């Protein structure tokens, strides 16, 4: 039996169930107790489990993260909320130098079973210090697991799995998804890490979308089918470490084409990681380059129109998929906009544009 709940409530259920199941679990973060969290995810939990296990903290991100690392080493299972992924930069030392490395640097003697919950993503006009999408910053560090759910069921099931895992997990929630409703099954609803899910089956082109971009890729697959007669396979990896590359490679071997969709910045990004791995693993099968549709390489602007422009939408994904399917040239040269982005963002062209592919 499946209920329809919001992503927010699904997260709340996961936290409630894990708090009830295991005394070692506790929550810490700014305003997550009495106030219920900046995005309401922890509503009611302080009332239910008390202020010791659902703990409001001062504005001291690095130290709160470090408190979690110590408590985890001591055997507890802290779930630390960082109010916005941007504030996690203050805690990078504890997350990357410490949490991610303790197990290896003690030769396996210590474990750090901690979850860092971080709302991320644009769309709320929160501007350049509150809106980024930074899976890649955490994916870079080998000792961290990284989860980025896009549905209510995955939000719940992956968070429960994260809490039970013995590794530090960076758990990225997308702020624009909190209010989205979808089905959540009864039962413990655990979702394993490292298992991608095919949201829309297809044969012409593979679309891989991360975090909210999984939803965008899925919708783009529907548009491609309805309006262009193209059969796209939309895959949501759900976790980036571990990554279920096999499922993606198998799809690309079938379709011969792939578009990776990420809201984050392109250089040293998730899309680059997937593109690099796919062309390594499926080189002979590819009939077009793996294309990336990435967030624009810019601090997130406040203005609504600019913000919309900075974040990939269905249309951009559809255009890239059409580019991939129609790919016929030996060397695509970037459009003027693509060249600008290359200057601003370094190596990256957002996508090969249709008009360029058409010139040869």
């Amino acid at each position, binding site marked *: 039996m499946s209920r329809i709940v919001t992503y927010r409530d699904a997260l709340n259920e996961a936290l409630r169930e894990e708090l009830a199941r295991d005394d070692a679990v506790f929550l810490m973060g*700014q*305003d997550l107790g*009495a*106030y219920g969290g*900046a995005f309401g995810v922890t509503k009611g939990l302080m009332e239910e489990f008390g202020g010791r296990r659902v703990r*409001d903290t*001062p*504005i*001291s991100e*690095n*130290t709160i993260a470090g408190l979690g690392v110590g408590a985890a080493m001591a055997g507890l299972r802290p779930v630390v909320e960082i109010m916005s992924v*941007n*504030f996690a930069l*203050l805690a990078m030392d504890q997350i990357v130098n410490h949490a991610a490395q303790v197990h290896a640097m003690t030769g396996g003697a210590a474990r750090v079973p901690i979850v860092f919950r971080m709302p991320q993503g644009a769309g*709320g*006009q*929160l*501007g*350049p*210090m*509150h809106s980024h999408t930074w899976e890649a910053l955490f994916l870079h560090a080998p000792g961290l697991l990284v989860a980025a759910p896009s549905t209510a069921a995955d939000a719940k099931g992956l968070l429960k799995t994260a809490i039970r895992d013995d590794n530090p997990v960076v758990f990225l929630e997308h702020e624009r998804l909190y209010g989205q409703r979808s089905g959540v099954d009864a039962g413990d609803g655990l979702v394993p890490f490292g298992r991608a899910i095919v949201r829309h089956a297809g044969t012409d082109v593979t679309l891989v979308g991360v975090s909210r971009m999984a939803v965008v890729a899925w919708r783009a697959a529907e548009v491609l089918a309805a309006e262009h007669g193209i059969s796209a396979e939309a895959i949501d990896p759900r976790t980036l470490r571990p990554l279920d590359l096999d499922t993606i490679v198998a799809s690309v071997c079938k379709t011969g084409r792939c578009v990776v969709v990420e809201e984050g910045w392109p250089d040293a990004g998730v899309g680059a990681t997937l593109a690099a791995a796919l062309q390594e693993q499926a080189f002979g099968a590819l009939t077009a380059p793996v294309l990336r549709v990435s967030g*624009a*390489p*810019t*601090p997130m*602007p*406040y*203005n*609504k*129109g*600019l913000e919309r*422009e*900075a974040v990939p939408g269905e249309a951009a994904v559809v255009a890239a998929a059409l580019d991939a399917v129609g790919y016929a040239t030996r060397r695509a040269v970037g459009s003027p*906009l693509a060249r*600008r*982005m290359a*200057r*601003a*963002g370094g190596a990256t062209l957002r996508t090969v544009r249709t008009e360029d592919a058409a010139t040869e």
Partner: protein
Amino acid sequence: MADHPLPDAEVAAEWLATMLLIRRFEERASALYAAGEIGGFLHSCIGEEAVIVGALRALEARDPLLSTYRAHGHALARGTAPGRVMAELLGRVDGTAGGRGGSTHVFDAEHGFYGGWGIVGGNLPIAAGFALAADLRDEDSVTLCQFGDGAANQGTFGETLNVAALWGLPMVFLVTNNRGGAATAPTERHTAVGDLFERSRAFGVHSVLCDGMDPAATFAVVGAAVRAARAERRPVLVEALIHRVGGRSAADPESATEDEPAQVRRRDPVVAFGDRLVDAGLLPAAARTELDRAAVATVDAAVAFARASPEPAPDTLLDHVLAP
């Protein structure tokens, strides 16, 4: 409040006018926010008019000022055109940051106002950098860095105070202590020692308290701090005690008199300062009403200016990512 002398009539009227402008501006911004014309965050300076005007009037034009995400009032008091601030809130090209910063990141270097910052505690070291620059260039400016009591729990607080004391940086730290951070959590859930000025001394930064609800008191205390910082090349911390102030009507001298108890009136810094000027004979009651009308008219014009300003073009998205 009566401990600190009032300035002369002309200056006093300018202070009140600026406080009224901030109040009316913030009220209008809240309305536009509720109506969806402003997006994202909107942090209001309502209730902080006294500490803003009192502190900023203690500065010279050349003294750099840095504030937080709650900074419309600082820009207005520093002299930024209200239309440009409102245009920023509306995300327009004539905004102080071309619509890219929004409410959180108001910025106006021409008026010595260097933001508008979104990371709690993040502006402290940056402000110290301005003071360091003045020092290295043998300029006699003093940098004013304003922040909330919540920021005193960030690592940058201790780090910056330490280095400012160590290097004798000419700056004033102005903490607006409303005994709370964010929406709800009171000081008691943030810190074991409520007195920030004590904390400051432990880092070698001399500190003083002031009544941040009184512009004259704030002016006197911040003024002394600025003079000390300028003359003696050292940092000073001022802890301004403030409290939250209620809704819209509090600013309106006429509507407020009828139904609000005297105690509430006294707690509103704009009303209280206006009352005091009138009582002291420094301002005729009619002139006070006129100042308020002028503030409203200025805000009307600012909104009109902002609405007339274009949205940034989509193809400018990557402008300013890198300096040329």
